[in-house]
């Protein structure tokens, strides 16, 4: 099935070819012009590295940031530091045609000064995962593959959603991203996946995407699942032993899943499936 899609995508590729010079507005609101199809790319975002590889651009990557670790090919590439501690000299030495960065960190100036084309492609929300995939496809002349990837991702997501939509009961859930405590609102990237996995986020959307919340709210909302921390830590918090998730041992600390959920890229359907299997194990027998 996958093969068929990619084959047709490859055939369509000719019709979808990007024409260079290509001018686009990046995520920092800058107009960037690419003179020709980039052949040497450095990526500073793990999710962008994953997307580039998923649309057939892995061979063009000549360097990645230290957190890029998927797919395996990427781990063999030279590391160029990270957004906040970049190794500019190493980037320059790789003679990239473009460097893909985030809107965070201040990489634009030093790299531009070094005569390198820089473009910020920074997926943050759920829908941006798809729109940025298209942009990356355009940039590297793989737009057809990008579209095919999106169709495949949407299909895999729909498969999970069809199951969870009809779930008899939707448990409430709390997802903690750090223990001070910060959590995710329903409109954030993780929040959307939580909803699609058939859970009800206890956090009201009005609080924003990544609010610092009162523990009172969690105790009051009595979630049936808690993600992002372990049972012992939850038990240690005053009053939390009265929360159903803690009583029933449904406090889920899954580092691999958390890692997947922190990557707004092509493995989004896997992240969703992982989440849905925890929330609704009965649907995945």
């Amino acid at each position, binding site marked *: 099935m996958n093969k068929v899609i990619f084959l047709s995508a490859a055939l369509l590729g000719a019709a979808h070819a990007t024409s260079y010079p290509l001018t686009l507005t990046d995520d920092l609101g800058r107009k960037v012009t690419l003179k020709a199809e980039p052949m040497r790319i450095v990526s500073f975002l793990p999710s962008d590295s994953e997307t580039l590889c998923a649309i057939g651009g892995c061979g063009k990557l000549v360097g990645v940031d230290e957190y890029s670790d998927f797919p395996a090919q990427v781990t063999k590439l030279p590391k160029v530091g990270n957004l906040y501690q970049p190794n500019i000299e190493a980037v320059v030495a790789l003679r990239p045609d473009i460097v893909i960065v985030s809107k965070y960190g201040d990489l634009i100036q030093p790299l531009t000064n070094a005569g390198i084309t820089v473009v910020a492609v920074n997926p943050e929300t759920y829908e941006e995962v798809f729109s940025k995939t298209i942009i990356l496809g355009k940039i590297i002349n793989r737009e057809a593959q990008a579209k095919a990837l999106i169709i495949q991702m949407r299909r895999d997501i729909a498969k999970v959603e069809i199951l969870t939509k009809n779930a008899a009961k939707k448990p409430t859930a709390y997802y903690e991203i750090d223990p001070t405590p910060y959590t995710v609102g329903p409109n954030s990237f993780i929040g959307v996946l939580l909803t699609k996995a058939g859970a009800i986020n206890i956090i009201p959307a009005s609080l924003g995407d990544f609010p610092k919340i009162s*523990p*009172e709210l969690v105790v009051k909302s009595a979630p049936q699942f808690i993600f992002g921390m372990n049972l012992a830590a939850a038990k240690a918090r*005053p009053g939390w032993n009265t929360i159903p998730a803690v009583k029933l041992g449904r406090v889920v600390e899954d580092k691999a899943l958390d890692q997947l959920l922190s990557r707004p890229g092509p493995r989004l359907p896997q992240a969703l499936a992982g989440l849905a299997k925890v929330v609704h194990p009965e649907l995945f027998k």
Partner: protein
Amino acid sequence: MSAAIAVSRRLALVSLPTLLLLAAALVTALLAIGLGSVPISPAETLQAIGHGLNGAELSGNDVIVWQLRLPRVALGFLVGAALAVSGGAFQAVFRNPLADPYLMGVASGAGLGATLVIALGLTTLWLPLFALSGALLSVFIALAIAREGGRLPPARLILAGVVVGSILTAFTTYLLLQSEDRIRQVFAFTLGNLAFAGWPQVGRLLPYVLIGGGVLLLLSKALNTLQLGDLTARSLGLPVERLRLLVIIAASLCTAGAVSYAGIIGFVGLVTPHLVRRLWGADYRVLLPVSAVAGGTLLVLSDLLARTLTRPAELPVGVVTTLLGGPFFLYLLRRQKT
């Protein structure tokens, strides 16, 4: 002479400001127990307190009142009191109104300890121990460096404290950059956090405050004498250096305890003794106990604002204390000039 001082002291403690302060403390505590991100009626709140006191099975809002809010108020009060008393004591010992509980690198040391726990990925249950060790370690390093013969000159102590603090902060920053996904957690610690105050934490902090604060209260008469200058104090038979050392250790104990359980909360320790000095005078026998009550009240009030202004979201309490305390301090500074 001493009889006159005793009378004036008693007058200072039963004055109108004292009554107002006690009233403010009471009202603040009641509000802080009654208000929060989850609305709970006063009747229900009283009921919950009753259930808690009777050791009854807690459920629903009882849990929030008895296990979250009450200990949060109690811990906030203890932390505020500890910071204010040690602030007053530091100001006395250095005869410097800018001294605060974090002067000796206490905060930086505690911050480094906390960062280590978080960077090493240890459970946060280790946090108090590491923060406390870091705080005390930084104080002892500063003391060792500042010591000149048998003496501890205030200017050298401040310098040593500031530099030790800077070095430890540099280590912290380095560790943070190595584990950037945890930056926010440490950052939140440096802003102070009372979110997970529970009865066990209150019980564990209490000894620090009682012992450290108790020693400081016992030494308040000597601190008064110290205000006359080292030479005069020495000629009056006061062991100035030993006193200074003892006060620093007692105040650091208070501070380290507070930092371990609530993170680094700015301005309470600096501003409270100032405020108290203006209204009650500079007699440390009055200043220290009044500062404890005022500091506790200030922090409970700040925490109340932190968790209600944007409810059910929360602000970091250190942001509120600094926004309340900072401008007030500048106002004081401005008034003293003219």
